[in-house]
């Protein structure tokens, strides 16, 4: 009896342990899943290190390395290097990837120094009694250009969608410098470090010195070296003078009702950034000197410049805009009389009639002003005036109302519905501009017809792997592309809340009208790359170009995971179609990063972006599976973090 019991216990103890149920996540593993099953175009996948991978060149790929704050090398800086350049300068790759060195830093060291001649003779503002060069306290901004290492770089990296923020630094007191500060005080110098490359550098004097001295705007090539650069101020002159003697731009400004509290300056017509001193105005007429130091290519101070007269904050008056390029110096610039502002009111509701709270922006498309010759009110285009008014429609006694004061004119109205308990679901952004909102002079108050907003466009799709398996548990995002241009303070369309694919790979996104990169991010560790697809959503067709229509916004996508361009070659189709993104076998793009001295780059966040081959161009044919190149701006396609040896693994779509 005793022996029988012992045997039973022994059998129970030696029975196999039940295994944990396997994770349901689909993974890129081989030979469990044959690489031959991937029918993706291009090179055939092969089983490497237990994953199906392909070998391919990754064109137009940029790697951003954000170094940790406790890094020995370049703490807190973000390096941007094209993958091709990084691989070119690296050691031969093995299965763990290549080893690459980041380039040495460029130390930028300088001062904003004003010569006695500029102080006394040009700007008539001596900074000290002894007539010597003087340094000013400044804020310095470096805006990365792209390609960074190319002398032909013309675009700011941020405009291409690369998250390379401007690098700013402040000057500090430096008592070892021979050039004093204002009034014989201590000297000022600035110093910072950058990744070598091309930047737009702006050295802006701090208030109140910015009222006299202009910002120094120039393109600099930051070389991997250090050295003090005493950037002696050069004040641009203009060629548009009669007689032909160069002089600093000077203007006679006038306004019948007076300028008290107003400011004026010159700004760049393209970037809208200030390029001259910021002059304060008073009285009804004033002669102002607006000096620039922006190194124009043709040495004309007014190159691509426009003069703006800015009313005091809170005044419901438009900003006056004058483009003096090609004009004459000393010209009379008159701010024309503008009728008093009108009160504009209205309501926002859903297509079902319920109130919807929303942010609203009114952008002037034309402003009424009294013409100088006829003395009659005339609608002037935005090349003469600009005005943007913001307000919010709030729930009041069951209705969502807004009220705002605007200078009379014509306005584009953008409505951005707010999520909230009063609204069920999120409604789509709506733009009313054809016809615009009319605010007539002496028509107070102006009652805008009720604006109706519709639910966001719902985009659905099914994500699969190229070997035929469904892709569950993947994150699907709608990444907005191409911010709305103009004076709108928002970037539209908005980011959409991400979705997660279900067991069949199905997903659904709610989006505003606009252009998106729909990005599928398989769960980390599955061995699959991110894929993106450019999708225009709800763009107006030729037959429905009336933007004032209150009809529902419809989605438009390309069928069957194509490139995002309309199937018929014309305008985008109106009917929503299911997206079918397919995830391919990836290219291994892991690498080991070292600094110039061979130290590992530890705990740095590495992001891969794919730049458009040519903005607006169609993508390469036969490559629907990868991150397409038709996106009008860079889109992130992979992300990793380096380990203690500087190594990171990254799998990218071919």
């Amino acid at each position: 009896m005793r022996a029988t019991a012992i045997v039973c216990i022994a059998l129970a103890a030696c029975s196999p342990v039940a295994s944990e149920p396997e994770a349901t996540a689909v993974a890129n593993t081989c030979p469990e899943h044959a690489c031959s099953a991937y029918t993706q175009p291009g090179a055939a996948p092969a089983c490497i290190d237990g994953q199906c991978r392909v070998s391919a060149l990754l064109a137009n790929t940029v790697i951003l390395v954000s170094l940790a704050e406790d890094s020995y090398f370049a703490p807190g800086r973000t390096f941007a290097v094209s993958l091709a350049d990084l691989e070119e300068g690296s050691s031969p790759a093995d299965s763990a990837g290549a080893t690459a060195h980041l380039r040495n830093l460029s130390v930028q060291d300088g001062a904003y120094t004003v010569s006695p001649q500029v102080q006394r003779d040009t700007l008539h503002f001596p900074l000290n009694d002894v007539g010597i060069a003087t340094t000013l306290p400044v804020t310095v901004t470096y805006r990365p250009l792209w390609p960074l290492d190319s002398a032909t770089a013309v675009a700011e990296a941020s405009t291409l969608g690369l998250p390379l923020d401007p690098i700013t630094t402040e000057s500090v007191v430096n008592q070892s410098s021979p050039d004093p500060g204002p009034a014989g005080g201590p000297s000022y110098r600035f110093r910072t470090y950058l990744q070598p490359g091309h930047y737009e550098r702006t050295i802006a004097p701090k208030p109140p010195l910015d009222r006299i001295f202009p910002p120094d705007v120039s393109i600099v090539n930051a070389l991997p070296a250090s050295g003090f650069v005493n950037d002696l101020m050069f004040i641009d002159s203009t060629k548009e003078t009669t007689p032909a003697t160069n002089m600093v731009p000077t203007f006679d400004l006038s306004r019948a009702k007076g300028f008290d509290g107003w400011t004026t300056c010159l700004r760049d017509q393209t970037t809208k950034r200030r390029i001259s001193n910021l002059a304060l105005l008073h009285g009804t007429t004033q002669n102002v000197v607006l000096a620039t130091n922006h190194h124009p290519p043709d040495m004309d101070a007014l190159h691509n410049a426009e003069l703006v007269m800015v009313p005091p904050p809170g005044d419901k008056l438009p900003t006056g805009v004058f483009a003096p390029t090609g004009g004459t110096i000393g010209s009379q610039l008159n701010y024309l009389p503008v009728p008093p502002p009108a009160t504009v009111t209205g309501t926002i509701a859903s297509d079902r009639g319920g109130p919807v709270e929303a942010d609203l922006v009114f952008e002037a498309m034309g402003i009424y002003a009294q013409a100088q010759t006829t003395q009659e009110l005339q609608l002037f285009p935005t090349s003469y005036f600009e005005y943007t008014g913001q307000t919010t429609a709030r729930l009041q006694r069951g209705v969502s109302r807004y009220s705002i004061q605007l200078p009379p004119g014509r306005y584009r109205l953008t409505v951005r519905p707010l999520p909230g308990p009063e609204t069920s679901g999120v409604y789509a952004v709506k733009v009313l501009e054809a016809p615009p909102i009319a605010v007539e002079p002496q028509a107070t108050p102006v009652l805008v017809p009720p604006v109706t907003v519709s639910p966001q466009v719902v985009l659905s799709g099914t994500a699969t792997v190229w070997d035929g398996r469904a892709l569950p548990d993947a994150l699907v995002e709608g990444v907005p592309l191409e911010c709305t241009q103009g004076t709108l303070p928002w970037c539209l369309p908005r980011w959409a809340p991400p979705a997660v694919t279900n067991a069949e790979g199905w997903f659904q996104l709610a989006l505003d009208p606009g252009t998106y990169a729909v990005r599928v991010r398989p769960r980390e560790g599955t061995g699959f790359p991110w894929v993106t697809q450019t999708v225009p959503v709800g763009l107006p067709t030729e037959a429905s170009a009336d933007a004032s229509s209150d009809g529902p916004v419809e989605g438009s996508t390309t069928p069957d995971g194509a490139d995002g361009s309309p199937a018929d070659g014309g305008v985008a189709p109106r009917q929503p179609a299911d997206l079918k993104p397919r995830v391919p076998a990836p290219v291994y793009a892991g690498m080991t990063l070292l600094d110039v001295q061979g130290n590992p780059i530890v705990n740095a966040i590495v992001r891969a972006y794919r730049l458009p081959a040519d903005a607006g161009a169609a993508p390469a044919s036969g490559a629907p599976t990868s991150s397409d190149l038709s996106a009008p701006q860079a889109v992130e396609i992979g992300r990793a973090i380096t380990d203690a040896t500087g190594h990171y693994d990254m799998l990218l779509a071919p």
Partner: protein
Amino acid sequence: LTIACIIAPPPDLPKATGRRPVIMHDSVVPPADEILATIPSEFLVPVELDDPSQPFEYDVFIDYDPVTQTGLKIAPTRIDPSTIALDGGIFLVSFQLDPSSSELVSGFCHRIELLVAHAFNPGAPHTPDSRGGDSVTWLYNGGGAGAGCPPYDASALGDGGWMPQDENADGLLVTPESGGGP
């Protein structure tokens, strides 16, 4: 032989209680030791997990008011990392903010705060459960300058600071690059 099979295996070690998720503060993008003049396209926060299979939550506040307990911008979001998902137990949390949102009015200093925890107390998303949590804070001033924001420690090389030689007592304190005294 029979007796040997009878011997019971030693009992399993008691399972350790999971520890709090920890933010890798030095690797946060954008760095949190500078006043932001613009809202970046994306915030990235690496979170180190003691147990890579352990779920955790994160949320985001803008100008959290401890009196009224308001300011929640992104509600607690649960992350269920799988064991195969994490390389070294590090998970990258990312989030976006709309710079034109009413909470981020230009010209004022704003405090953007991301918190991580195993879980947050129900009804109090600024308070982690008993395992504790971690947080990272950015200061944002849309005006582009530090006006209105608390002063920050300007390192000599990091922000262009210049080592003072005979700085007067009223001047800004600057941390020398070497860590030594001026």
